[in-house]
């Protein structure tokens, strides 16, 4: 039914629109996701001209505009470049679930990355004061993987490692 407004009923149609989707990965993202799923390996591709890594990979180097034909495995450890503490969770349209707040998203420079290709994912942490730029973190893979963002559960702080750069934040 609708709301009464000046004595007149206002009709509203409420619908949950559920739309199935199918996305092709193509060979480049396909390889990246397959390596995550099957081998727990993080693969970046590399530009033959400038040597930059791209993570997640894409077919063409964003700077040189040539086919990025190289592939390198990057280690599942790195350094936090920046992070975001989220206090307001929006529901995930794929699952309807809402993450518990606060939660942390981080951008991590995996060891050995050439150029700017920070890896973006969740950071699992109990104590928010432990999260700083320069903190060393490692990937935690999910047991049940299907070639998706969730194949990585989150990053976690590597205990007892010094903060790189000694940044105050």
């Amino acid at each position, binding site marked *: 039914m*609708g*709301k009464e*407004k000046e004595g007149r009923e*206002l009709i*509203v149609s409420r619908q949950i*629109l559920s739309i199935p*989707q199918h*996305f092709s*990965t193509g060979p480049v*993202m396909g390889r*990246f*996701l397959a390596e995550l799923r099957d081998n727990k390996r993080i693969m970046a591709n590399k530009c033959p001209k400038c040597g930059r890594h791209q993570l*997640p990979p894409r077919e063409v180097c*964003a*700077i040189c505009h040539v086919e990025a034909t190289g592939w390198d495995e990057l280690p599942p450890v790195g350094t936090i*470049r*920046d992070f*975001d*503490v*989220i*206090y*307001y969770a*929006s*529901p*995930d*349209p*794929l699952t309807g679930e809402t993450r518990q707040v606060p939660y942390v*998203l981080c*951008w991590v420079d995996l060891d050995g990355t050439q150029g*700017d*290709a*920070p890896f*973006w*994912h*969740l950071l699992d942490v109990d104590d928010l004061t432990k999260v700083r730029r320069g903190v060393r973190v490692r990937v935690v893979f999910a047991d049940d993987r299907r070639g998706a*963002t*969730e194949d990585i559960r989150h990053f976690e702080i590597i205990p007892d490692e010094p903060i790189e750069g000694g940044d105050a*934040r």
Partner: protein
Amino acid sequence: MTKNRNVAIIGSGMSRFSSHREEVNQPEMIHEAVVEALQDAGVMLDDIDCVLHGNMELFEMVHQPDMWHVIGDGVWGKSGIRLTTGGTTGATLACAADNLVASGLHDAVLAIGFEKLQEGHTTGGITNMADPLWGRSLQTGALTGTGAQKIIDEFGVERARWAAMKYRTIMDEHAMRNPKAHRRLRLERRYIKETAENSPPLAGELRMIHMCSQSDGACAVVFASEEKVRQWKANPAWIVDHETVHREETMIFGSQKNTQRVAAERLFKRTGISNPRQEIDVLEMYDPSAWWGLDWLRDFLLLSGDEAIKMVENDEIAIDGAFPVNPSGGVIASNPIGATALVRVAEAAMQIRGTAGDHQVAKPVRRALASGFGGSLWTVLMLLSKEKPEQGAETHG
């Protein structure tokens, strides 16, 4: 690229911005803005030969809404074009309208931007925009604390927090003078510190009070050729030039300069402006949050260090200040996304034409700047002027 002829905005209209427009459906809400725009321009529906329609695609989960909106937007029997580029759609509509009339293809173009966010699902829309193969489930859209942190890192937490809330308060003071604005909170300067502290955090130091609203609303703007301006004896705000910047490098987080600065550098170089703070009289900036407003003010005016933050601290950006910013209240006060960037252009034109009523800036306006902002951090920047540009001036296509 050169224009074939000059183009001016001769009228604009807006529906009331609100989060409760249950008494109208989408085409009816747009109709309000269109009727007002035609009246303001002093033209009839028959005088318009093309209608450009846009919004943030699928935010209301209606595909090709322009087909439905024919019953209210006046496009029946005319050329109709639909355009959508995300949050910048409104400004892109203005650029496209300018191009269409400048080309000679149309003499009078009606650009319409709208959004009925109460009917839609903003998060779903933003998630829809994200890469479906990677990261979609991590996407938070504009809710990020990184913009605030950048200012805090540079100026220290006390100064930064104060400036952000002062900016927010000034925006609200402006909104209080704009009867169309959505959120008019009567924020008081003496409570700046407490208001910020008591506002719930969204992400990092970005708090609810800093953040833009989700609004229902439509904006319609009439663009006309110089011949039509003469024929109709219209009151014009001339489009000088516009620039759109969408950069991979800016999205590779934090390592490159903002698209706002790149856009400003390119636009001012082309239009021969060397000191924007002196040579431009008012800025209608797409500011999704007070923190970004602080950051991009510096970029748009090609300033450095704390020059921009001082403009906030010293009230220069207030409506009676030396360089007013968002006399309409800006995006924090009203954000019907598909319309929002077009509203910036319309408000800039109103300042030039002298039709902004209670939120007309105190100083005379010769040049106005309007910006649009979109999801992948991109910028659309448009320069308008009271004087007609030289025929055949260099511009961007």
